[in-house]
């Protein structure tokens, strides 16, 4: 009689193709190196959290290849993660205080609902970058995808800053409620493309967007005012660009050598007159 080999389904929610085991870790003082090659994100993040609570100050993650949620929900300051490889979705999601530097590209959702901290990506990043971010700095060297900087919001002293060195697709800064979004258009793979797509700042009701160069009127949402950045605006932008240039090894003066477009909402209450009370 033939017996069928029992097929064991992976537990619900598990993404296949990774090994569910703790990564190998080498420690040198407060510097920790983790070999993330083929390790599932849960075990990888467990290891990161363990090392952080064990006092690690610098955690080097080697062989990262698409693992999600690196640094997700990490509430700690004075700790730096270095990601060698391609960071997966939701890098630095909900992060509060940690610093993450990616030597490679990052996928979607970097800095999603991030509270504070610093993320530097020496490559491109995907869609929904900085969604709902309310503090901290996210710097991307190259191009970014769709829906970047949606609903960023400032609150008391928490002012999120997102700088993209390349070009962006549609919905850049949609629903923006606070903070600063900067798009440089310099480090791009696609010279023929516009610096940004359509629906730029659509529904924006707070914060400010700076674009190096100009955008056309059809690209921007109905709720914003578009001007060339004046002296005061450049004074606000300059320290951010200097910080960004320092992180990326670029020349701040060269970045600032061209005029910027400044986009701000015309109202903090864009839909106040839309309704009639019953």
């Amino acid at each position, binding site marked *: 009689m033939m017996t069928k080999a029992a097929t064991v389904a992976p537990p619900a929610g598990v993404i296949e193709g990774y090994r569910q085991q703790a990564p190998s870790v080498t420690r040198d003082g407060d510097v920790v190196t983790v070999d993330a090659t083929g390790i599932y994100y849960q075990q990888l993040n467990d290891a990161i959290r363990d090392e952080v609570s064990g006092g690690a100050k610098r955690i080097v993650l080697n062989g990262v290849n698409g693992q999600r949620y690196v640094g997700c929900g990490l509430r700690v300051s004075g700790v730096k993660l270095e990601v060698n490889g391609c960071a997966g979705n*939701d890098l630095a999601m*909900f992060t509060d205080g940690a610093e993450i530097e990616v030597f490679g590209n990052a996928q979607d959702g970097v800095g999603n609902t991030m509270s504070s901290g610093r993320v530097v990506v020496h490559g491109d990043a995907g869609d*929904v970058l900085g969604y709902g971010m309310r503090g901290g700095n996210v710097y991307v060297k190259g191009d970014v995808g769709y829906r970047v900087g*949606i609903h960023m919001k400032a609150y008391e002293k928490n002012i999120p800053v997102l700088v993209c060195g390349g070009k962006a697709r549609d919905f850049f800064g949609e629903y923006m409620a606070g903070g600063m979004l900067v798009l440089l258009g310099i480090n791009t793979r696609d010279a023929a493309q516009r610096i940004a797509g359509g629906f730029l700042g659509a529904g924006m*009701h707070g914060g400010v967007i700076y674009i190096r160069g100009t955008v056309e009127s059809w690209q921007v949402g109905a709720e914003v005012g578009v001007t060339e950045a004046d002296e005061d605006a450049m004074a606000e932008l300059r320290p951010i660009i200097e910080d960004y240039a320092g992180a990326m090894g670029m020349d701040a003066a060269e970045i600032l050598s061209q005029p910027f477009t400044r986009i701000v909402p015309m109202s*903090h209450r864009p839909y106040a007159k839309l*309704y009639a009370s019953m």
Partner: protein
Amino acid sequence: MQQTFVQPEFRVKIDYDKCHKCGRCVQQCGWGVYDFNERPIPHDEKCRACHRCVTFCPAHCITIEKNTLAFRDNDNWSTDARKAVWKQSETGGVLLTSMGNPKPYERIFDKLVLDACQVTNPSIDPLREPMELRTYLGRKSDSVSAEPDGRGGYKLASSAGLERNVKLDVPIIFAPMSYGSVSLNVHRSLALAAQRCGILMNTGEGGLHEDLYPYQDNVIVQVASGRFGVSPEYLQRGAAIEIKIGQGAKPGIGGHLPGEKIDREVSATRMIPQGSDAISPAPHHDIYSIEDLRQLIYALKEASGYKPVGVKIAAVHNVAAIASGIVRAGADYIYLDGFRGGTGAAPAVIRDHIGIPVAIAVAAVDQRLRDEGIRNQASIIAAGSIRSSADAAKAIALGADVVAIGTASLLALGCHLCQSCHTGKCSWGITTQKPELTRRIDPEWGADRLTNLIHAWSHELQEILGALGVNAVESLRGSRERLRSIGLDEQTCRILGVKPAGL
């Protein structure tokens, strides 16, 4: 000034012979109905029939009547339809309203009746015999095993996969209502009552005020598209986390808390600026698919140490398939909000015309998840106008694990369903941020009333279970054989899985 065509809906009548001329009505009314010139002078057009003045008038001399102004009869053009056209031609605005859909759609719960034991099987007297209302919210394991307990009996070999479940003493929890849409004293009342009753309150999408931290084990923290108040600390404090996709009162549209309701405290709790509109986009912009939903569910689990994560959706046409996707995405519970569910503000056209009844949604989802063999993987919460313990029992018999009450809990705190939450002037101090109004609710008083309501419904549920001859609410879950319909069409009966009375 342009004369409005929309005449007052109510007439405020004062018996001046009895009136003490004390001005209490002037002080109590949040709508500014009354002027005072030696005696109170009402302005009918501002009255919302909330009865705050009637309740607090020491002379009992105020009555509110319907304005009986006659319109030429027209079954097609109701007076409400005519008034809406006038209002919109005067303002050009989307008509904004509050609370649940009041239209005369079929009320399914009112066409279902429960069974009882007679002769052939004994009913149980819950006053003298054990009657279990406890249940667990969250994912249950696919199987359980038992081992000897060393005393000649058996016990479960493990925690039966319940370690990530939230224990509820009764299967009734408070529905999500955000701080901002309701006052902080309402949140305090709900949190206190939830702790006393061993149940849960839900932050809604307005963040968790630090005054509620002591009650965090009885709080579901919600994550909605605006991500208001969502920080890692917030996620780590809640007993469970809920992703809000939709709401029964306004499926498919976003939220919009007007800037004037965002004072310093609301701003601090939501982590947004004071005075700016708090706009929740219609979708989560990081969720465009079931796969994206799964990504957020597991992000929340990663950030919270693997707390239960539920997903709240509005009951819409294809709810069963959507629910199946949600369970497969890893949700620990699904919250189904029917089209009668309340809201702090919604366009009337959305509230009154979109969505399906929760009874139908629960039945369809429960059946689908059973058919697919995944019913154990998530609990079902039913909400959207659970008006009584009878509605709760019927929802549970149709397949819900737990029911959530929003409107009923606000009624306990004084709400009279005047459907004016969106004005921010609630005279009962519920849906307002004005300090002179919010202080009308003392959290201890509020918690007492809410606790009374939960206890009363719990006793009634026990009576119902006793009559049905079962001794645990979990024995009623999905037990549609204990329901019969009266006057529902055959197709609806089939969807509900309920036979007509007499069969």
